[in-house]
């Protein structure tokens, strides 16, 4: 009898697994029309395939110093606005900021000649000037995410007069670390051969490298987890949104990729203060504006040992580090992060953005 009941239990488990597997298809069919990046925004400026978005403010009076969000070239910016209740963008708007975002678009084969100069001294600089003109301010807040944060560091060293505040979030800086596998692998990459032959670097190929960092968790276990949580509608929609983001990987413009990997990842020239862009020295000593360096303690893509040294490398007297017990993605989408990360960043930014008191605050 005992054997039978155990067998039944195991068979029950197998049957449940099979039922869940079948049900997952029905569940996914209902979730096929999910939206991402839904916070309302206008395209206010276009530069080739890049577009500058201006989000609709959610408060009457916004801070006079606008924020320009710079995302990485890898993956898409809507990670910051994945869903209404997990949106760094929305949190910034609700905290009273005027928010712009530079969407790099999807490079095609003809864009493989785009250089880091084109991205940073071209599209980024043009966007900053556009915002300065539109808002009537001399300088703005740069808010860089991951590789976008590295771009913001470079930009701030080249054009310090245009940057009022600099916020970097999980951004690679010092690449002489063996903590992250990407740092380890990129060192032996023959990037010249890769770019010469392929032109652009396939986004799917890079994505595969990211999945390989935790292959069993990311390629198998998360789907088992999904099957376990099929009944939970919130879990399912969050999962589908995340899957959509993960597999939405633009190709990398070849020339920009070549310089970024060779000079920043392999030679670590930025951290050594020997990086040049467009013939100009990217001098870290020029970064004297207020700086907030945010990183995640369990970041497997950009380890804290890569982000942390930036704070020490610059002469700014108003600089601060914020560290959170989360990972590279969790820092943006984790439910705890919504309550901790953005409020703390906003708290740091408010006094440095000369926020006018809101009506409700005036009455007090």
């Amino acid at each position: 009898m005992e054997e039978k009941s155990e067998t039944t239990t195991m068979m029950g488990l197998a049957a449940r697994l099979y039922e869940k597997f079948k049900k997952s298809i029905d569940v996914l069919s209902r979730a096929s029309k999910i939206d991402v990046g839904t916070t309302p925004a206008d395209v206010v400026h276009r530069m080739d395939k890049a577009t500058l978005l201006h989000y609709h403010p959610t408060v009457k009076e916004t801070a006079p110093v606008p924020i320009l969000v710079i995302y990485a070239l890898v993956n898409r910016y809507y990670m910051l606005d994945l869903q209404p209740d997990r949106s760094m963008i929305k949190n910034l708007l609700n905290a009273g900021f005027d928010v712009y975002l530079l969407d790099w678009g999807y490079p095609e084969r003809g864009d493989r000649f785009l250089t880091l100069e084109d991205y940073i001294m071209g599209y980024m600089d043009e966007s900053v000037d556009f915002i300065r003109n539109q808002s009537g301010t001399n300088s703005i807040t740069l808010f860089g995410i991951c590789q976008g944060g590295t771009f913001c560091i470079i930009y701030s060293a080249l054009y310090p007069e245009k940057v009022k505040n600099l916020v970097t979030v999980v951004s690679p800086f010092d690449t002489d670390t063996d903590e992250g596998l990407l740092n380890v692998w990129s060192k032996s990459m023959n990037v010249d051969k890769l770019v010469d032959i392929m032109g652009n670097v396939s986004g799917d190929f890079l994505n595969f490298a990211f999945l390989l960092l935790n292959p069993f968790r990311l390629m198998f276990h998360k789907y088992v987890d999904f099957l376990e949580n099929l009944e939970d509608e919130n879990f399912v929609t969050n999962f589908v949104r995340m899957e959509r983001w993960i597999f939405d990987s633009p190709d990398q413009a070849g020339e920009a990729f070549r310089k970024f990997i060779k000079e920043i990842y392999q030679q670590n020239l930025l951290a050594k203060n020997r990086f040049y862009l467009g013939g100009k020295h990217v001098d870290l000593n020029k970064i004297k504006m207020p700086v907030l360096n945010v990183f995640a303690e369990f970041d497997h893509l950009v380890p804290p040992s890569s982000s942390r040294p930036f704070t020490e490398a610059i002469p700014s007297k108003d600089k601060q580090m914020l560290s959170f017990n989360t990972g590279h993605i969790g820092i943006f989408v984790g439910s705890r992060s919504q309550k901790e990360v953005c409020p703390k960043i906003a708290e740091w930014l408010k006094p440095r953005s000369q926020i006018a008191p809101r009506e409700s605050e005036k009455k007090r």
Partner: protein
Amino acid sequence: MDHKNFLDDILSGFTGAMGNIGASWFSQWKRIIEEVVEAAEPLLKGEGFKPDDLKRLYETALGSLIAASEWAFHRDTIYGILNAARLQASLLRFWTDLERAINVPNAVDNVRSVTEQWRNTARDIFKGVIAQPLIHPFKGLLESLSPPAEAEMLRSIYSDASGNLNKVIRLWLETLERALESVGSTLSGRDIGRWKEVYEGWKKAYEETVGKLLKTPQVGPVRVPTEIFLHTMDSAIRYLAAMNDFYLMLQARWLEAMEEVAEQMPQIYEQGKGAETFRKFYELVIQTAERHYNEMFRSASFKEMLSLVSDTMLDFTKDRQELLDWVMKNLTLPTRKEVDELQKEVFGLKKRIKELAGKK
């Protein structure tokens, strides 16, 4: 109901759905319509449906839905789910066998024989479930080798010569595959040296025979395309060989990890029985594999392997592009090189216009 048959059914269900993903959505839809008509026939004749027919129909429909265009958005996700479910189902089947073995007379002998089966199970899981997503990005190029589209185009020009060469190369690759398969069926994670030995032997033999043939300087009016063709074949073989090496490295580490799992299995089993211990067993498999792979990914030998795979992949891509360029040129179509040059010029001009507009 025999539980083993039931689990086998489940496994074959997953396999069927997996197999369907690869096909185009159009052919899948065609197939499902045919299946529906066939399955509906007894019903129409008043003979009624058999539950198994329904189940088979569902699997086909599932595969079709996955491959259909409106499902493109979920394609990678569903692929992941199917693979994860297959992994769980395979582990579940093994765990059930283990439980049965323990609950009968002479349990010690039975358990020993089942745990010995674990090695075979681990090898099958790697082959059927783990390997595919791990080598996925390289697979696209490999598929184009079988048979190479360019070889097909050139076959019309070289006719028998090309066909024969293809045969030689295929034969050569099959030899490697067979040799590795026979080693693979007996090796465990700890004797990596054995497959390396076979692989190195194969490489040496290749360089001295077919490899030499492919590098022979050509003469006559078709010298240029012949040389390009032979180079492409050579780089394709080197790439495929590197991929085999890569595959075996991943497999060896997986088997090593699963040996460790086998050692810890009794402790897990002692903690209880049924579904709960299975969950612990599953967690152990995932965690052990993850830890082993993380260690391997940091090793110098893995970095070397990654370089070897990407280098041979790029060499093959480059030769293949040259071959395609030659074909395009003969079809009086613009070659990739020509389009590249044009794009570079357009890119430069656009930049110049922007600069000039800025100066105004």
